[in-house]
């Protein structure tokens, strides 16, 4: 399992783990709790070029469908076949075995625009305070 503190985050709750130009993408533990049981993943095609912020993957829970946005631009180089087969992995290990896809970033510097863990935690707090519950 990855250390959530070392990941970058989007406001739409994706996480990104960057090593050089190699990025791994998933959704946060907070997000999996929010969307409830994941039952279906429609992954992007390997080889597809995506732009930062582009919807490229769909995660469906019992409750609703959620678009997953590319945290950085690049080429999709792998999808998590285990999670496609057993989507509950996203619920049980959002920061590990429940990863969604890997990409080769065309401009890794784009990652600096994303939130770090502390900023994401602040964002979640603000979101909770803003919501009704």
């Amino acid at each position: 399992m990855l250390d959530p503190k070392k990941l970058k985050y989007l406001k739409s709750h994706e996480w990104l783990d960057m090593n050089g130009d190699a990025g791994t993408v998933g959704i946060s533990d907070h997000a999996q709790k929010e969307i409830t049981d994941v039952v279906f993943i429609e992954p992007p095609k390997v080889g597809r070029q995506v732009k930062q912020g582009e919807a490229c993957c769909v995660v469906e829970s019992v409750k609703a469908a959620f678009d997953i946005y590319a945290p950085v631009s690049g080429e999709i180089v792998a999808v998590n076949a285990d999670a496609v087969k057993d989507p509950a992995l996203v619920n049980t290990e959002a920061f590990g075995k429940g990863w969604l896809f890997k990409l080769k970033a065309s401009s890794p510097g784009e990652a600096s625009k994303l939130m770090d863990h502390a900023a994401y935690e602040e964002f979640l707090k603000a979101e909770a305070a803003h919501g009704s519950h």
Partner: protein
Amino acid sequence: MSTSAVLRRTALYESHKSLGGKIVDFHGWELPVQFESIIKEHEATRRRCGLFDVSHMGQVFVTGPGALAFLQKVNANDIARIGPGKAIYSHLPNERGGVVDDVIVSCLAQGRYLVVVNAATADKDFAWFQKHARGFDVALENKSDHFGMIAAQGPRAAEVTALIAPAAFSLPRFGALELELYGQPSFITRTGYTGEDGFEFIVPNEIVVRVWEDLLAQGRSLGAQPCGLGARDTLRLEAGYLLYGQDLDDNITTYEANYGWVVKLEKGDFIGKDALKKQRTEGILRKLTGVKLLERGVPRAGASVLVDGREAGKFCSATYSPSLQSGIGTGYLDRPDLAPGTKASVVLHGREIPAEIVKTPFYLSSNLKKGDL
């Protein structure tokens, strides 16, 4: 409904919060959609026992020498078929054959009945009853604010229920029992909306928390666990039960909803009888039809169902079925002739997913007979 309306809470609200329930707005009520996981709660109910807070539902008491005659007038089902200690599922038709609400009527004693109505329709139903009670020797009481309601559902629900109400153990399906629980006048019916054997406790608000906490604490060793509305919805859709306001309303008839068995045309006069009789003779133009996806995908209400290359209707209820492990849905299709097995497709995210027409219920519990509803 006004969006600024204050949300209502059941007596169990604090209990739900302390158990980690994820609270949502359900038709103006703050209720838990899940505690741990919709799928786990669904499976717990199919295999063991799920406990549900259904306190948002309403209770109307109908008493007096004219109670039966009045209920016969406002119900499509034949209320004379139930004597004291029995309950029956029914529809309240309007003059056009549309459905004012779907309800469970329990006969508590001769001339004394309890009607359990839906939350969002409780006030509408009561006004409807009052309007049509003129000329009947009957008293109507809306006690919805006085009672809470807990459903214990699943193959072990009888054992769990017996922990605090031993007398309920031997109730037959659709049996109704009036009893004292913790010194308070209460009711238990062997009914539910999950497609499993189950019981519904109707108890005064003062003791709802005690009933809930005792069922949970004492039932834990039997596998009882709290379940939210999310599981309630997947369970009821698998079981082919209607959700009023989504699958059924004032403009949809009982025949169109494929619940024709509820209508007893031979029982005598009742509201909507002429319209329903006419529709039975002339036939229906649309029918609530079950559709099962043959490939992966999760359908939602509103998704188009295509048959023979054209849209035959849209889903009014749809979900992922944990028991079938596939997408299922029901919708009013303008092809009432379609036989089970007919090929169809469902449009999801702009793609046509192969599907087929299936018989409902989608799932039939081995613990219930088909006639048990």
